[in-house]
C-alpha cells in the first residue's frame, strides 16, 4: 500500500518537474527571441524546413477534407431541401474548427516530430554541448529559430488549409453535385463573419502553433540522449501535441463561441 502510494507520488512529482522544466525552457526561448532580429536568416531556413516542406501534406489534406465536407454536408442538407447552405457548412466547419485543428495535428506529425528528432539527435551526439563549449548558446542558435519558425508557419498553414478546403467543397458541391455557385458563395458570405469566425480561427491557429512548437522543441531538448530516448521523445511529441491541441480547442471554442 505504502509502496503504491510512493509510486503515485513519484509519478506526480515527475509530471510536475517536467512541467516546470518546460516552462523554464519556454522562458529561456522567449528571452532569446530578440537576438534573432540580428540573424533573420536562421529563422528563414527553419521556416523552409518547418513550413514550406509541410505545404504538400496541408494542401492535399485540406482539399480532401473540404471535398468530404462537401459530400457529407450535401447528403444531409439535401433531405431538408437546404443544399444551398452547403457553403456555410463547409466554410464554418473549416474556418472555425477543422482548419486550425487538423492543420495543427498534421503539423505535429510532419514538422513537430522532425524538430524533436533533430534536436534530440543533436543532444545525443553532443552537438549542443559542443556549441556550449564554443560559447555559442544552443538555445539562441538552435532552439529559438525553430520555435519562432513553427510559431510563424502554423497560422499560415491553417489559413491555406481552410482556403483549399473551401475550394474542395466548392469543387464537389458545385462542380459534381450541382449546388448553385452563387448560393454557395452568397450564403457563405452572409453567414461567415470576419471577426467572429475568421479572426477567431486565426487566433486558434496561433495558439496551436505556439503549443505544438513548444512541445516539439522541449521534448527534443529534454530527450534522454540515446537512440531509444530520442525515439520516445518523438512519439511523446506527437501524442502530447495532439492531446494539447484537442483539449485547448475545446477551451478556446468555449471561450469564443460558447456562453459557458
Amino acid at each position, binding site marked *: 500500500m505504502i509502496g503504491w502510494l510512493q509510486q503515485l507520488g513519484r509519478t506526480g512529482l515527475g509530471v510536475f518537474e517536467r512541467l516546470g522544466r518546460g516552462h523554464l525552457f519556454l522562458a529561456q526561448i522567449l528571452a532569446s527571441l530578440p537576438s534573432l532580429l540580428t540573424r533573420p536568416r536562421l529563422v528563414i*531556413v527553419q521556416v523552409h524546413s518547418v513550413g514550406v516542406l509541410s505545404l504538400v501534406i496541408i494542401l492535399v489534406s485540406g482539399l480532401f477534407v473540404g471535398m468530404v465536407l462537401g459530400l457529407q454536408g450535401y447528403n444531409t442538407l439535401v433531405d431538408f431541401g437546404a443544399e444551398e*447552405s452547403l457553403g456555410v457548412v463547409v466554410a464554418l466547419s473549416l474556418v472555425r474548427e477543422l482548419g486550425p485543428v487538423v492543420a495543427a495535428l498534421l503539423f505535429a506529425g510532419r514538422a513537430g516530430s522532425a524538430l524533436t528528432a533533430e534536436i534530440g539527435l543533436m543532444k545525443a551526439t553532443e552537438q549542443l554541448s559542443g556549441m556550449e563549449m564554443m560559447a555559442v548558446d544552443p538555445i539562441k542558435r538552435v532552439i529559438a529559430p525553430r520555435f519562432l519558425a513553427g510559431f510563424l508557419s502554423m497560422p499560415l498553414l491553417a489559413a*491555406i488549409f481552410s482556403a483549399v478546403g*473551401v475550394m474542395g467543397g466548392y469543387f464537389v458541391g458545385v462542380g459534381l453535385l450541382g449546388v448553385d455557385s452563387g448560393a454557395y458563395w*452568397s450564403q457563405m*458570405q452572409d453567414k461567415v463573419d470576419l471577426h467572429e469566425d*475568421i479572426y477567431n480561427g486565426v487566433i486558434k491557429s496561433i495558439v496551436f502553433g505556439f503549443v505544438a512548437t513548444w512541445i516539439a522543441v522541449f521534448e527534443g531538448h529534454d530527450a534522454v540522449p540515446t537512440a531509444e530516448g530520442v525515439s520516445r521523445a518523438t512519439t511523446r511529441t506527437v501524442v502530447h501535441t495532439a492531446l494539447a491541441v484537442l483539449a485547448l480547442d475545446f477551451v478556446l471554442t468555449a471561450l469564443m463561441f460558447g456562453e459557458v
Partner: protein
Amino acid sequence: MDRIRAIEVGVGLFVAAGLAALFVLAMQVSNLSAMSNDQGYEVVARFENVGGLKVRSPVSVGGVRVGRVSAIDFDNETFEAVVRMNIGNQYAAFPTDTSARIFTAGLLGEQYIALEPGGAEEVLKAGDQIQLTQSALVLEQIIGQFLFSKASEGSNTGGSDK
C-alpha cells in the same frame, strides 16, 4: 549560395501563399465583400417585403438562373424595398410587363426572385422598372392569416347553427 536562394524563394512563396489564403478567406468567404462582376444589364423592382432575399441571390425564369440581385435598398418616401438585379446580356428579351415574385427554394432554402414574362411588345432595358411585383411570403403572416380565417370560419358556422 544557390541553395540558400532556393530556400529563400520557397519561404517567400510560402508566406505569400499563406497571406493570400488569409486574404481569400477574408474577401471571398466572409461578409467583407459583396461585389459582383457579372456582365449584364440592371433592372429595378419594388417590393413591399423582400423577406430573406439577399444581395447575390439568384434571379430565375422558369427555374433557369438568368441573373443575380445586385443591391437591395430602402426607399424612404414610399417605404418600399428597392431591389436591383443584374440580368445577363444574353437574356435581353423580357417584355416590359414582366412580373417579379420572391419565392423560397424548398422549405428552409434560400429566397430568390422568379420573373414571369408577360406579353408586351416592348422589351425591358437597363434601368427599367418592373411594375408587377409580389412580396415574399412571410411564414408568420401566412400562419396568422390561416388562424384568422379558421377562427372566422368557426364563428360563422357557429352562427349558422343557431
